[in-house]
Every structure is written in structure tokens, then in C-alpha cells.
């Protein structure tokens, strides 16, 4: 039976590949729900701490501290690259979108029967994703703050760590897709894997976009008169 002309069957279960694909797509949607819940947890943490500014400790780089006693205890780190908390979030989002477009190009080419196009698209998407991972790492290592420099630093670093985790998974999947396409395991008839990867990447773009929106439009806390709580350290 030629897989290119007839509906191929799964070697393990004997079911039509379209059935396996339908199952995998359903799995993808549930995974997106799970990942979205995690992303929402991060966004809640970011926006909650931003809105409260407890003990004036939100403290984004360059923000004027209100001069409370606890503010003075914030460790000060030497600024490395103040622009790292500005446009790089959008640059990284742009790279992820570019990688997604490349992946979609490859997938569309595969659907047209052009396997070479799929290899080119996936390869380009992979290279861009690797470059994005490096860029994300450079951004983290040049932030003008350390993890202990207040709630803003914590929230931004968690967002970036989540991005890195997503990018590592993405690179693994894209590399696998490239190898499998090259080996002839991904074809016009067996297309569900690049399809769900393409959909997954659209979700990643949304997740990265939410992070970029937070880090751009929610920098200075709106709470200029924050609550000052005692701490266990002070009590002791």
C-alpha cells in the first residue's frame, strides 16, 4: 500500500492515521488548556504583585523608591543593560512569531505534497527558535536586577523562565519533526504531527504576547501609597 495515495494505518494499533490525528488534536487542545492555566497563574502573580506594591517592594529598575524603611533594605544590583527590560520582550515575541510562520509555511507545503518545502520550513523554524532561546538567555543575563531585587524582578524572571522552558520543548519538537520529515515519516498523508505543532506554536505566540504586554504596560505600580506590613524579621 502506498502511503502517499491511500489512507495509511497506524503500525501499532492498525487504525487509520486520520483517527490517530483526531486524537492527537484533541490532546493538543487539552494540553493548551493546561499550559494556559499555568500561564494565567504567572500573569496573576505578576499583576497581583504589581497592583499591591507591598511595602513599596515592586521596585522596577529606575523606579523612584518611596523611602520607607523596608525599601532601603532592597539589595541594589549594578545596572547591566537597562534596555533589557524594554524592547527585547517584543523582539523575542517577534522571533517566536517568525518561527511560527516558518513552521506554518512548512506545514502548508507538506499539505501540497512538497516535502522539501516542509523540511525548509521546519529547518528555518528550528534555527529561529534556537536563536530565540539564545536571545532569551542573553536578555535574562543582562537584566539590570537580580532575582532578589524585589517583586518586579521575581515576576519578570519567572515569565522569562517560563519562556525558556517553552522554547526548549519547542526546539525538541521541531528537531524531531525535521528528522522525521527527512526520514519520510511525515508526509502529505501523515501530516497530523506538524499540524498540531503549528497550532501549539500559535498558542506559544499568545503566551509570549501576554508576557510582553505585562512587562511593557505594567511596569510602574499604580499603587503609589502601598501598605507597609511588618515582617517576622522585624518582630524578632
Amino acid at each position, binding site marked *: 500500500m502506498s502511503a502517499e495515495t491511500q489512507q495509511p494505518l497506524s503500525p501499532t494499533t492498525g487504525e487509520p492515521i486520520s483517527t490517530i490525528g483526531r486524537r492527537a488534536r484533541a490532546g493538543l487542545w487539552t494540553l493548551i488548556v*493546561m499550559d494556559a492555566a499555568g500561564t494565567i497563574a504567572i500573569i496573576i502573580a505578576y499583576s*497581583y504583585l504589581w497592583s499591591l506594591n507591598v511595602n513599596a517592594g515592586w521596585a522596577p529598575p529606575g523606579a523612584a523608591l518611596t523611602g520607607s524603611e523596608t525599601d532601603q533594605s532592597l539589595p541594589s544590583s549594578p545596572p547591566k543593560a537597562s534596555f533589557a527590560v524594554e524592547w527585547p520582550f517584543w523582539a523575542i515575541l517577534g522571533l517566536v512569531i517568525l518561527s511560527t510562520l516558518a513552521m506554518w509555511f512548512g506545514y502548508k507545503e507538506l499539505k501540497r505534497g512538497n516535502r522539501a518545502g516542509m523540511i525548509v520550513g521546519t529547518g528555518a523554524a528550528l534555527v529561529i527558535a534556537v536563536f530565540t532561546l539564545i536571545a532569551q538567555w542573553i536578555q535574562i543575563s543582562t537584566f539590570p536586577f537580580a532575582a*532578589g531585587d524585589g*517583586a518586579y524582578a521575581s*515576576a519578570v524572571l519567572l515569565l522569562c523562565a517560563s519562556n525558556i522552558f517553552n522554547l526548549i520543548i519547542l526546539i525538541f519538537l521541531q528537531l524531531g519533526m525535521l528528522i522525521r520529515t527527512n526520514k519520510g515519516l511525515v*508526509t502529505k498523508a501523515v501530516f497530523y504531527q506538524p499540524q498540531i505543532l503549528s497550532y501549539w506554536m500559535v498558542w506559544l505566540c499568545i503566551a509570549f504576547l501576554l508576557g510582553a504586554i505585562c512587562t511593557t504596560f505594567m511596569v510602574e505600580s499604580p499603587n503609589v501609597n502601598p501598605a507597609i506590613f511588618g515582617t517576622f524579621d522585624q518582630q524578632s
Partner: protein
Amino acid sequence: MSTETITPTSTVFGAEVPQPKQHGKPGGIMRRLNLGTALIGGVGLAAISGFVANALIPAGASTVTFAPVAPDVVYLAILVGWTIGFSAGIGAFVGPIRWLFGRDLTHADAEYMAGKDLGVKRYFKFTTDHKVVGVQYLVVTMFILGFGGLLAMLIRTELGVTWSEVFSPGFYNSMIGTHGIAMIIAMIVSVMGPIANFIMPLMIGARDMAFPRLNALSLWLLVVAAAALVSTLFTGGIQDGWSVYQPLASQGPPAMLGYQMTIIVFAISTGVASVNLMVTALTMRAKGMTWSRTPIFVYGVFGAALMGLYAFPFFQYSQIMALTDRIWNTSFFNPLQGGSVWLYENLFWLLGHPEVYVIIIPGTVVLFEVMPVFLRKPLFSFNFAVAGIVGVVALSGLVWAHHMYMTGWAPAANYPFMLSTEMISIPVGFLVLVVIGTMWRGLVWTRLPIMAVYAVIFNKMIGGVTGIYLSDVPVDQYMHGTMFVVAHFHYMLMGAGLFGAMAGLAFYFPKMTGRVLDERTASIGFWTAFTGFQITFMAMFVAGLQGMPRRVLQFDSLFNAPNWISTIGAYIIGLGMLIFAGAVISSWTSGDKAPANPFGSKSLEWQTPTPVPLENFEVLPVVTQKPYSYGVVDPYQKEMDAADGDLDTQKVGSNQ
């Protein structure tokens, strides 16, 4: 698929299917991996990670709060090493690596991984067959329940012996915390693990779960998490309750990292299990099994999985943040640097309350499967049951802050949360009505599973009504933090959840083990435990109403009497559980062989042979009628009978 990679074909369920190249013997490296290699890998990598971390930390290094760094970092390295080493040793990474390099499984590989011809060994491997995973879940759940139950007995011993201190305060606190989280984990998986995994694919006419390797992964990650939890007892203990509120937890011993790692890994396990259960229910139902013909158990499992899917990531991230606060000095929950402890409480309870329904819904729907069989009548108002499940799922995410009335967080939100909490009693009431309606005028075949339904309904009513009290802000102001709350949630989680799971186990035992359960002994155990349960927790209600605070080691002599009674009740529960477990183990090892359908059930899972063959069904079934159609004439069968009748008439006519 290209001709270079696919050479031979294989007959897979009657179809000739091209196969990828077979590399070596079927199963490949999985033939060498099992629980032994997992333990070697886990312990080995944990030891190496610990030594390396210890070597890399400068001597005398301390955190900003002057606590030594080494214990935390070394313990975390050990936990990470254990998780990766165990997963690698059991074979969890083999599938992704094979996928990466395009070495797809052949049918022979898949059969090996499903445990074909492996005998008992398959229970100690990364086996993908849903029936094996179900049995593995059952055993692991029983171990966790035993561990948590033992801690409960020790806690009650301490509280019962009111004239002396049996355990140190620190160890007592860690027993409370460890008991709490161990039991929560065990209860979450008690139906969703063993019964849903084993039974649901059979019930919907499928050959396996949608993603068999994810199924095995979820089970073995549970083992990883359970070991991490046990390790906390040796690293200072979880000393601030199962909710490990911040900032208290951040000042606790290194065991807090064990708790955090347990939750992070368990959340992944639950997530992949939820994905698997939901996709199986959505896409693998037999032909003809429309939603109105789908058993209610499938709805319940789907709903519980959906709640787990959206709620667990909040819990997971709360623990990731707590971990980074501790190790990397971030300040999510440290008010000194802009963190907020209310953030923790919100994230925690965004899981904490839906989790109650993740436990109760499967424990309830398994009773819905039991009742029609032993009452020989259809489930009362199937649509009400579905509406109840949908209502609970929809409202489950809107009630979390009733756990925070007294924390001072958003007092203005107390009353909306009171309203949403009381509203959820409406869909829960639907489920109770379905039980009562089904039982109404039913002729009861008095076997253990159906008798357990009475026990569960009794407990659920008490737990539910006291829950309505506690959801009222004014009442909660008085009751909050007392033993009344402890009694209430035990009535829900243990009284409804665990006793429901026991009913489910008694019902499905013949199908799962191939043996007949010694119902007489199991019933003695069940009712002994039920009696002990009432004694323990009714006395606890009294102590709570008198004002006894929870989680305390020492208390006023005013509370002596209810505590003595409670402790006696706890020993009776322990005795009952031991008898029940004894009946299960002895029946499993030496019970009579079970017939395929000992209760005369009409649902699909009972139409398979016992023991169930690897492929479940020789030919996939086609569903022609609604479930629970006891006493209802099957129109298809009627048509067949009519056709037979016509034939007979014709034969008679021709003879004349």
C-alpha cells in the same frame, strides 16, 4: 511513509499494516528496564547530584536571612536527581527519544510494552496496557492510603493520650502535614487512577487509552512524587499543615522543598492523566455510543479530569514560586521585598477547592454505576446527573476564597464567595436526588457495593450540610480553625470519597483481579470502618463546637472526652480498614475465579471475558441502546425477537 523505513507488514486486529523497521527484539531497551533499574537510577543520580551540589557550595554560605544554604541546595539536588534518575531508569524517556530519531514502534514493540506474555513482571515495568496501569494505580494508592492512615492513627494516639506527650511537637506537626497531603494525593487518585484507568476504556468499547505511554508516565510520576513526600519525614517534616501557608513555610526546614517537589511532580502526573482520560472519553467511544448512551461514569471522570487540568497548574506554580523564593531569593511571598502571602493563598485555593470535587465526583459517579445493577432499574434522571456534574465543574472555580474569609483578604468578596459556595450545593443536590430517585422503590440485591451506597449518602449528607454552615461568613467566623472544620472535610473526603472508592473497588474487583471478593469479610471491614468513622468524627464535631482548635498538640482538659472517643473511633477505623484490606489481598491471591459478569450488568465492561484479554474486545462493539436499560425492552432485540417469531410462524405454517 517511505519504502526505505517500512519493509514488512504485520496483522494488526485483522488488517495488514506496513511496519517500521524492527530494531533488535521487540521492546528494545525497554526489555532491560524495570522498577529495579528505576530505583538504581533514582538513588544513584540522587546521590551523585547531592555530592556535586555539596562540593559546589562554598563552605559556610548563607542566605539573606543567615540560614545555611547547603541543606536546601543539596536536598533539592537530591530530589531533582531522584526524579530524573528514576524516570530514566523506568524508561520514561525512551519514547520521546525514539520519536525524536524517527524510530517508531512496531506492532510487536507496542505489544511488548503493553506487557504481552510478561506475566507478573509487567506490573514492575513501564507497561502501557491500561489494565496493568489500573492495577498498578490500585497498589500504589493502597500504599499511600496505608502510609497516610498510619500517620492518622499516630496523630490520634497523641491526641487521645491527653496526659502525656507521645511525640515531640515538631514531629507531631510534621505528621499532621504529611498525613494531610498524602491523603489528598491518595484520594485524588483513588477512583481516577485504578478504576477509571482499568474500567473506562472497557466501558466505552475501546482497546486502550488514547495515549498509553502517557498513562504509564502518570503512574510512575506518582511513585516519584510519593517517594519525595516520604523523604520529608527525614528532612525536618512538613510542619505547617498540608496547605503550607507562606511565609511560615519559607522559614521551615528543608522538608518544604520535598513538599514542593512532590506537588510539582504530582501536578505533571495529574495533568497527563487528565489529558489522557479526557481524550479517551472524547474520541474513543464505540460506534453508536452517542453522548446520551455514554455511561455517567465517563461524564464524571471527564468532569474531574477537566477540573484537574485547569486547577493543578495554579497549585504547581504556587510551589514553583515558593521554591524560587527559598532557593533563589525571589520575593513572590516575602512582604519585605514586595511579595504577598495572599498571592500564595489565592493560588493554593484555586486548586484547593476544585480538588475537593476532583475527589468527590468520581466517588459519586462510581455509585451511579453500582445502583442500576443492584436495583435492576435505570438510573433516575440521567440528564439531572449530567447537569449536576456540569454545574459542579462550572462553579468549582468560583468558590476558592471561602477558605480565606478569615485571612483579611478582600472582605468585600466574602459575600459573593458565600453565595457561589452555597450555589454549588444545588448541582450537588441534583446528584443526591439521582441517588434517592434511583433507590426509590427499588428492590435491593443486598451486596456490599450497593450497601456501601447507603453509607456514602449518609456521610455525604452530613458533610454537605456542615459545609453549608461553614460557607456562611458569620458561622465561619466562629468555626474557622476548629476541629469542626476537620470533621466536616473528613466527612466529604473520606466519608464520601474513600467509602465511594471502596464501593467501586468491591464492585469492579472481579473484573480487575479475575477473582471473587470475599464479600463477607470485606463487609465486616467496611462496616467496622464506617462505625469507627462515625465515632471519630462525630466526637470531633463536638470538640469543634466546644471550640477546640485544630492542629494543636496540647489542649484544655475540657476537650478530653471527645478526644478519647475520637481516638477509640480511629482505632476502630484502622481495624476495619485492615480487615477490608485483608479481604482484598486474600481474595486477590487465593479467591475463587470470577465469572465474566457476576452481577449480570448490562454495560460494556462486563461483556468482556475475565481476565480481560490484552486487546479488550476481539471485535469492537457497536452500541445500540442507552446505558442502564434494566427493565426496558431493547428495541433492537425486540425487532430480532419479532423476526425470529415470524420465522417460527412461517415454519409452523409450512409444517401445517
